[in-house]
């Protein structure tokens, strides 16, 4: 049974790497309203950074006008202090989500991406869902219980 939603926050920004810090700080500030531990806040910042980086680097790869490429982040807090974060882009989408989520898998060719983004998201959250349509975009939904 789904839990009652007690608070909601939404933010949207251009798919520019400088906004990665803004996105994780905004979600961390929202999460902090229910007073989680420092390590839980660190987990939240890390997973948001991973998902937003994926949207910017992969989702909107090859798009020219980055100002018009929008990443949206929707956060919901439940009565039981579960934080649900939905990171959405309207970019290229992922052909094979299962393969993309394998540890060390990367499409990067210059050796600077570790291919650990989804593994980090899986490790630091309680649940992850990835819905992607090639040519339409990707929605990553992360859930984490902030405290019991």
């Amino acid at each position, binding site marked *: 049974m789904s839990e009652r939603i007690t608070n909601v926050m939404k933010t949207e920004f251009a798919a520019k*790497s400088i906004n*990665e*810090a803004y996105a994780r700080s905004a979600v961390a500030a929202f999460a902090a309203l229910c007073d989680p531990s420092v390590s839980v806040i660190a987990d939240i910042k890390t997973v948001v950074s991973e998902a937003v980086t994926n949207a910017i*680097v992969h989702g909107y790869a090859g798009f020219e006008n980055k100002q018009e490429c929008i990443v949206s982040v929707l956060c919901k807090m439940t009565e039981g202090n579960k934080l649900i974060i939905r990171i959405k882009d309207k970019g290229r989408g992922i052909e094979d989500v299962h393969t993309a989520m394998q540890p060390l898998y990367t499409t*990067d060719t210059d*050796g600077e991406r570790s291919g650990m983004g989804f593994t*980090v998201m899986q490790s630091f959250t309680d649940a992850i869902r990835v819905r992607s349509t090639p040519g339409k975009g990707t929605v990553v939904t992360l859930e984490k219980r902030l405290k019991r």
Partner: protein
Amino acid sequence: MEIGCKTEGNTTVAYILGEIDHHNAVTARAALDEMIEQLAPIRFGIDLSGVTFCDSSGLGLVMGRMRKCQTVGSSMFIKNPSAAAERMLAIAGMDRILKIERGK
């Protein structure tokens, strides 16, 4: 983010202060590669004690610098990783393949 380095004898230790994400990693990569290429020290360390945030871009940064060090014959190590950096190294099992120096 702030980056610098100190050389003592045959060892150069670079330090990174602040947050390592995909955005900052680009700057860090250029700065560290310049140090490695110009100094080509026998031992090259990256001091991560001042890293306040690190996502998987930090792993890519470390993996890429390991390869860079190999090309100039430097032996690379990580020095005093902060909690943020350490857990990221651990998640990729890099704490087992990289030399990590603690203390001092």
